[in-house]
């Protein structure tokens, strides 16, 4: 069984630009000019990045990040 596709999602309403996610998962997150986070591309998390994605989710002080599973 291959794992399901995981996506990293940023909740724009919650993000306050603490910038941690970008430092913890630089390949998955970009920061715009105003300092807010956005998932890179379509947010897909490759398997080798899933640990970093989890770390970013866990360390967002605003709980603005979540992982979603495509089905």
């Amino acid at each position, binding site marked *: 069984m291959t794992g399901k596709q995981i996506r990293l999602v940023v909740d724009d309403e919650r993000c*306050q630009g603490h910038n941690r996610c970008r430092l913890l998962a630089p390949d998955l997150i970009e920061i715009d000019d105003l300092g807010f986070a956005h998932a890179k591309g379509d947010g897909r998390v490759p398997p080798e990045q899933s640990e970093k994605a989890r770390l970013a989710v866990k360390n967002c*002080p605003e709980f603005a990040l979540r992982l979603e599973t495509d089905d």
Partner: protein
Amino acid sequence: MHAPASRLDAVDLSDGQTFARGFPHDHFVWARRHAPVYWHAPTQRTPGGEGFWVVTRHEDTMAVMCTPEVFSSDLVPPRTGGGTGIHDDPQAGKTMIFMDDPRHKRFRSLVNKGFSARSILALETELRRRTTALIDAMPEGEPFDFVDAFSRDLPLQAICLLLGVPQDERAQLVEWVDHGIAEANGEIIAREDFRKLRDYGRDLIRRKRQNLADDVLSTIIQARLEPNEEGSEGGPLTDAELVNFFMLLFAAGSETTRSAIGGGMKALMDHPEQLERLRTADIAETRLALEEILRWTTPTIYKRRTATRDVDFKGHQIRAGDKVTFWEMSANRDEAVFDKPFSFDTRRAPNLHLAFGFGTHVCLGASLARLELRVAFSELLARIASFRSEGPIEWMPSNRLLGIRRMPMSIRRKQAVPN
């Protein structure tokens, strides 16, 4: 597991004087290693002869903050007060910082409408104007007090801007808050000034209702929740709730930011090579530097919660009703999370400091505080060629806020560039 009690008892964390010469780091380095969670015995200063738990590590501090259903900010009966200080606060349950979810969430989602990072950024131009005026008024080549000349005013101006306090009323307000902070004895703003400020707040809210404008206070006055959204009964905030919120902004947003600006200035003067580097830093590097200033200064030293039930925490039996304190300043020097925690390093990345808290109560004003810091340091560095410390800092004798009372320094301006 058990540390010699004498070693722990030697440092009385309930005594403001313990912090009069700065934070007792030695004690916490030792505690993080040998007694990361410990019971602080009652002292002469602990209310009701009651002791409290002390949580010192980063990981455990996060755990407490992320489990609000067990570690409450509200009033936990049979207490008649609660909140986030060692002393029970009668305001518990009346203001968002002393509420638990879901009531807290209802409140927070209402005020969030005015506090999004984007509405905060709209204040930048005006804040910059105010900042440069303060810098231009600093004396050159002679010692002056940085708190008096700069770090006191800026945070209060920022809150006034946010609330849409008319320009000609700001000076009076600034004086009350400032006087209140200076006189405060264990409280964050002294009682008498607290009353004046509250009366003013009531009046301002009444005037805003009649004359809604493009400011955060007007946004919050108009905000209403749909019934059921976040599990609430819905509706707008009441006047009493609005006044409490108005007060909370001054209590939470003035002295804290003041310490971060003052402490950041001091840290940069102590590390001139980092100060010079920051002059030419890009925005990403500047943001990192501000985070390090927040970690380094950690303006609020500890928080308290109340256990809602018996719980086994890191091998300790915490009982329902016990007071549990966690020490952000200790967490922010935790060797397990920060490489060389006692070095100030403006390039530290990532910087998982807890200066703004974490989770449900994470600082509502974080974006505003960051904006203030960014504007303050970018303008200071752009206008001033050299900064010099002119003597030791005087700290406030308080365990709640690592407040700077006086900071003597002197400056030389940059030569005006002829155009």
